[in-house]
């Protein structure tokens, strides 16, 4: 191979190499299998053939099965996909914006801010944040909840960003983020303290996270928000690439840094906020998936990483959801427990084997 040829290869490196195309193809196939598996498993045993028939709208003899699949399991699996995409991409954006490999919606208190937003709406309505109260809301109120939690998330993020810009130290910024998360959570705790015991129980259940609470019109609202957030973040992938070099370099390359920050805060807050509003504060996915995506696709180009995060995040959430149902049993574990239990060792393994915590 002559030198000129090797150049051409380099110059085309913005495009996907054949190996990456194979990886993406395999991932998509894997996701499809996971989705069907997720739908076919649950407390009520439904034969696999019947599940396939119902998924492809071929009908079934048992009306109850159709109801369970169409009204409960498919919406839940779709929610898992949305949560997987949304949280991973919001984590990716935060890691790039803060230039910190440990940034993520749950660590820096973004989900806490979203919780506060939800709680405030519920409080003013004289009720408590819970899955069940959210489920009983009409379409207008569910928009209200999403907007409130998005604003809550955005406020916390802007606060952290304002503090971090004057500190310039990643570790201190992380500590500040954790402290702000604690302050936010303690405000919620104070309010819980004055609530009735059964309401507290409902709130606690909400904090365990659940994918099952999003049905019918809530699902459309969530779907719309996630699509909007993902679109916004994909549009800003060039901005994110430039921010990899730090704000001074980004500015010297013609980026209007403040405007870029606002766009990224908006999309991150919409993603993390709307998911937290409906599914509770789901931890871990936002930090872990971007690292997995960087390792697997071996790039820092956001045009590849954003779809990559969506694929891996979806796979992870579907797997977690399958495990949380504890196949073969009647009980289901909270999703939050599973995401951390499955995901943390994976992240440790990736970081240790690739030795690239620095490489974000």
């Amino acid at each position, binding site marked *: 191979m002559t030198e000129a040829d090797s150049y051409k290869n380099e110059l085309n490196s913005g495009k996907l190499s054949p190996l990456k195309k194979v990886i993406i193809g395999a991932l998509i196939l894997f996701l499809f299998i996971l989705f069907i598996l997720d739908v076919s498993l649950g407390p009520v045993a439904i034969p696999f053939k019947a599940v396939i028939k119902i998924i492809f709208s071929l009908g079934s003899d048992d009306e109850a099965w159709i109801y369970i699949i169409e009204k409960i399991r498919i919406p839940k699996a779709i929610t898992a996909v949305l949560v997987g995409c949304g949280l991973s991409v919001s984590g990716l954006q935060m890691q790039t914006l803060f230039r910190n490999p440990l940034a993520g919606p749950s660590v820096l208190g973004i989900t806490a801010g979203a919780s506060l937003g939800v709680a405030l709406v519920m409080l003013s309505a004289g009720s408590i944040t819970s899955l069940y109260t959210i489920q009983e809301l009409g379409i207008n109120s569910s928009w209200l909840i999403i907007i409130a939690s998005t604003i809550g998330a955005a406020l916390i993020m802007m606060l952290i960003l304002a503090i971090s810009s004057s500190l310039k130290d990643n570790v201190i910024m992380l500590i500040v983020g954790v402290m702000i998360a604690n302050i936010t959570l303690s405000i919620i705790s104070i309010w819980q303290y004055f609530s009735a015991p059964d309401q507290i129980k409902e709130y606690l259940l909400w904090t365990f996270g659940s994918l099952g609470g999003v049905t019918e019109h809530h699902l459309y609202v969530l779907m719309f928000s996630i699509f909007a957030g993902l679109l916004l973040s994909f549009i800003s992938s060039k901005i994110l690439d430039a921010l*990899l070099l730090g704000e001074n*370099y980004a500015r010297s*390359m*013609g*980026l209007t840094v403040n405007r870029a920050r606002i766009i990224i805060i908006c999309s991150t807050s919409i993603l993390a906020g709307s998911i937290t509003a409906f599914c509770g504060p789901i931890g871990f996915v936002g930090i872990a998936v971007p690292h997995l995506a*960087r390792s697997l696709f071996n790039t820092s180009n956001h045009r590849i990483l954003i779809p990559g995060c969506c694929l891996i995040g979806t796979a992870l959430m579907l797997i977690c959801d399958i495990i949380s149902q504890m196949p073969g049993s009647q009980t289901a574990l909270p999703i939050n427990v599973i995401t951390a239990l499955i995901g943390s060792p994976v992240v440790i393994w990736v970081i240790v084997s690739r030795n690239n915590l620095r*490489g974000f």
Partner: protein
Amino acid sequence: MEKQPLLKATNLSVGYRSGQKEKCVAGPLSVEMCEGQLICLLGPNGAGKSTLIRTLSGLQHALSGAVMIEGESITKLKPAQIARKLSLVLTDSVKSGNLDVFSLISLGRYPYSGWLGGLSENDKNIIQWAVESTHTEKFLDRKVGQLSDGECQKVMLARALAQDTPLIILDEPTAHLDLPSRIELMRLLHQLAKKTKKGILISTHELDLALQVADEIWLLKKDGSLESGSPESLVLNGTFESAFDKAGVLFDKTTGTFNIHQNTGKTITLLGNGAAAFWTKRALLRHGYTITESASAEIVAEVILSEKSLEWRLTINEDTFVSHTIDGFLSRLKTL
């Protein structure tokens, strides 16, 4: 119409503003840079070099005065417009270790590429040129985290070249580099300025390198004033000496270097020439001797090259000591 200078500062004061208070670090100063010029900004630590660099490149507002790029005020230009006129190499470290070198250099095309960052044929040609000019072909597929400091600076320079601007500003590009890398980088910048007619401004602590490669030196003094001129004129009129004046540090006009050794008042006559004599001179200076060439001194050292072997002959009041190594010669000298 007369051609506008690439970069021009008039009555510029730089510093920091916090609330109502202004802290002026340097200025007021007026300088000008033309195309094809390599200019080194020198000055002692704390004189405000970085602040001046940041202000000239538009990362920071001036306290007063104006910065013009190709005749247009920097405050009136949008970031995207500035990015097509001026590229930077900063001291900021690139923390994104997973970024590969090729992608990093391609980011230089940011001001020109489409809204998703796709590269056109022209973009690719310019990237290729930038890579070849900086000799970074070898590590294109490496990660930024795997580069040495010297390689990293070359890559950052390649990124700045890919930005294809008439003006490049580098903030202490030679810091943390070993001597060969420093020389290599400076030579590269010198060639670039000559070949491409770009204006290049470097802030640096490398006095001797700056004296050799710079077309012009901007010397920022501790009091915040700036003197500019060719390296030679600044040395000859004493500006250079006074700017770095500190107790025990003397600038030697005849060699263009700083003397770090203090004189002990002993005088020695050194005879002989060639490399051995030069290094013997260095060793004697380190030991605090003043060297003369006339045979008037009490001690006479002679370096003789005979039949492929070196000989050091030390004569003190008729006594002669002969050594075949410089170490033997020096240890004899110490016993005096």
